[in-house]
């Protein structure tokens, strides 16, 4: 296990989990002092999922957090003050007081898409991010999270299915924390493993212990690498437990005591500390240093947040529309030759080729029956006609298409990567 991560990586994971918990502990204090304007949601006990999965991303990658993914935001580079100020509705917060909690983003630098409260909506959005990144030649991966409850939405299906048809470089972390507000997962989904849903989309999936940060990281890293390599979207089910209520107002009395005490004994930070101590990566001194560093940082960040003003009232009327280039200069960052997507190179035959159509292959057979982009560009087609030997002879629904052309089409899919 150890040999795949460096000492620094182990310590990073520890630092971010501790920071995640400390940021939320600070916010509980702020909440009790009535300094938090709205609700406060907790990821207590789920820190390993946010931290481990986001740590698998590179700087250029995109993520969209859910309400309990404060840890992912910290890993991506959001300063704790932004999270405090969001909750306190301060003018210096990323949304300048227009929205709260983890509802903020950063398109320019950190590549974070803001969530909304309607669950599942981020899934097609991040599929779009992934497709656009591929189109621009950026080699990025997009990641978002969904809960066991959120996986019941229609848009979960629409988004994941669409991402699968597009083979989008997209990783979806399904945090199964056993509770959707007060409704247990069994009342949400009649499946033992929510990862089984991946089969419906013909995509790969993993199941991981969501309280084991190293396992989460390694699984997410493998998924991110595979998605980046063009294998299509990947679903990871991380099994965990929501230790607090839905939000601060909810004492969660509907949760059986035995269930709570079982999961409390599996606290992800304590488990990881045991592991790090056994592996001699962390000792009491190292732990103290990290704690002191976090304390000092959060004191500073909290002071800054508390001293930030509330937004001026009339600011409510501003910013509904982008007023043009002076407001936002929208420029895609091309990392491929634009000529590839412009005529004549972009031109194709308007036909669907359906490889393996009628062959009776199930979703475990690998490919969905209809493939994206398997008809070559006209210019490329002429070029490839001689070079590409047919691997198989896919049947085709196109009237005009010869077997040879179809074989070329099948070959060109590989050439696209």
């Amino acid at each position, binding site marked *: 296990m150890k040999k795949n991560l460096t000492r620094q990586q182990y310590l990073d994971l520890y630092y971010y989990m501790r920071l995640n918990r400390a940021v939320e502990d600070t916010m509980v204090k702020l909440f009790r002092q009535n300094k938090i304007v709205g609700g406060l949601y907790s990821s207590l006990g789920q820190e390993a999922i946010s931290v481990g999965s986001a740590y698998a991303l590179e700087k250029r990658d995109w993520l969209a957090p859910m309400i309990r993914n404060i840890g992912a935001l910290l890993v991506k580079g959001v300063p704790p003050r932004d999270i405090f100020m969001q909750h306190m509705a301060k003018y210096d917060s990323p949304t300048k007081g227009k929205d709260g909690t983890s509802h903020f983003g950063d398109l320019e630098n950190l590549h974070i898409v803001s969530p909304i409260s309607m669950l599942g909506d981020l899934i097609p959005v991040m599929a779009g991010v992934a497709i*656009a990144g591929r189109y621009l030649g950026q080699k990025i991966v997009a990641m978002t999270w969904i809960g066991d409850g959120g996986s019941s939405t229609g848009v979960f299906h629409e988004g994941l299915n669409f991402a699968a048809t597009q083979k989008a470089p997209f990783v979806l972390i399904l945090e199964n924390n056993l509770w959707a507000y007060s409704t247990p997962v069994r009342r949400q989904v009649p499946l033992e493993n929510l990862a089984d849903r991946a089969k419906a989309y013909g995509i790969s999936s993993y199941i991981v212990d969501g309280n084991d940060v190293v396992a989460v990281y390694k699984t997410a890293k493998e998924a991110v690498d595979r998605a980046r390599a063009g294998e299509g979207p990947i679903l990871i089910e991380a099994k965990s437990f929501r230790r607090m209520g839905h939000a601060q107002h909810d004492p969660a009395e509907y949760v059986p005591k035995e269930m709570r005490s079982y999961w409390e004994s599996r606290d992800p930070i304590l488990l990881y500390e045991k592991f790090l101590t056994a592996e001699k990566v962390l000792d009491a001194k190292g732990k103290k240093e990290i704690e002191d560093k976090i304390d000092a940082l959060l004191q500073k960040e909290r002071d800054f947040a508390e001293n930030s003003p509330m937004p001026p009232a009339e600011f409510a009327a501003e910013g509904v529309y982008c007023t043009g280039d002076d407001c936002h200069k*929208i420029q895609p960052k091309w990392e491929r030759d634009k000529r590839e997507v412009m005529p004549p190179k972009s031109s*194709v035959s308007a036909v669907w080729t359906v490889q393996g159509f009628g062959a009776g292959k199930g979703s475990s057979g690998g490919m969905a029956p209809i493939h994206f982009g398997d008809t070559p560009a006209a210019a490329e087609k002429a070029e490839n006609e001689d070079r590409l030997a047919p691997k198989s002879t896919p049947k085709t629904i196109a009237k005009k298409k010869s077997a040879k052309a179809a074989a070329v089409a099948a070959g060109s899919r590989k050439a696209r990567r």
Partner: protein
Amino acid sequence: MPDANGSKTTNGSKSNGGPVTFLEAIKQAMFEEMERDPAVVVIGEDVGVYGGAFKTSEGLLERFGWERVIDTPISESAIIGAACGMSYLGLRPICEMQFIDFIACCFNQLTNFVAKGHYLWNAPAPIVVRGPSGGGVHGGPFHSANPEMYFVHTPGLKVIYPSTPYDAKGLLKAAVRDNNPVLFFEHKFLYRRIKEELPAEDYTVPIGKAAVRREGRHLTILSYAAMMHTSLEAAEALANEGIEAEVIDLRTLLPLDEETILQSVKKTNKVLVVHEDTKTGGIAGEIAAILCEKAFGDLDGPLMRVTSLDTPVPYAPTLEDYFLPNAQKVFVAAKELARY
């Protein structure tokens, strides 16, 4: 059907090779925008291989390829969500709703996610959502909708509903270049029924500007889309009776061109609003409120409206004809208004 004189270019530009239909104008706009800017992509159901249910995207796939012309599953929320995500990386997707009625399926994605992004977290979403709307072609209750007012009530969106091929092309181009999410309604009754010469060169029509289609002094008829033509037809009949109606084509419903409306009211002092949308909650009510607030002293009569009935769009021709406004209904209402 009038030939939409009001929208003709005044720059004496040359035509692009004969008059074109509304459909052709839409196709030209998408084609030219994709040709101009590789950030422009088209996404929707059956837009690629098939060329769109109404053939508005015919030929785009052949020219621009699979990455820029994306056939999707039947998943309107995925279409809008993905387009929005694409726009965050600087692309300018044009989304097609196969029929605009289906926009109801992605209402949440549009109103909660797309529309609020700029206000909440400074994230512009330059996407266009376009599709065939409107009745009069016996499409029945699920293929005839005029859902514009759901979205006019949503801050953050822009809503366009043109009535001529010239405007359709120029406004669609303007919509693609706009940094905000724009809903673009295409009245399918007009798709093949009107033709117009279009300039050969690139042009846009500004979003948020109404057009005076016919000058008059006795009353103002405010309308848009197919009903603009109905209103012009009624105005001809009114002229025979000595009533000169000014006909204004709103073109954009959000933002509404209040200035042009108020100017006309100052002149005619009477307003009739004609829309194919149902009556309750239609744009006529909003216009009535604006006039009460800003032009109360200019009004010599009540604001009147000719609209569809407050029912779903019925299927049988007898029922649909009764449901829809027509030139006769506009004529009768205008004559009544002119008596004040």
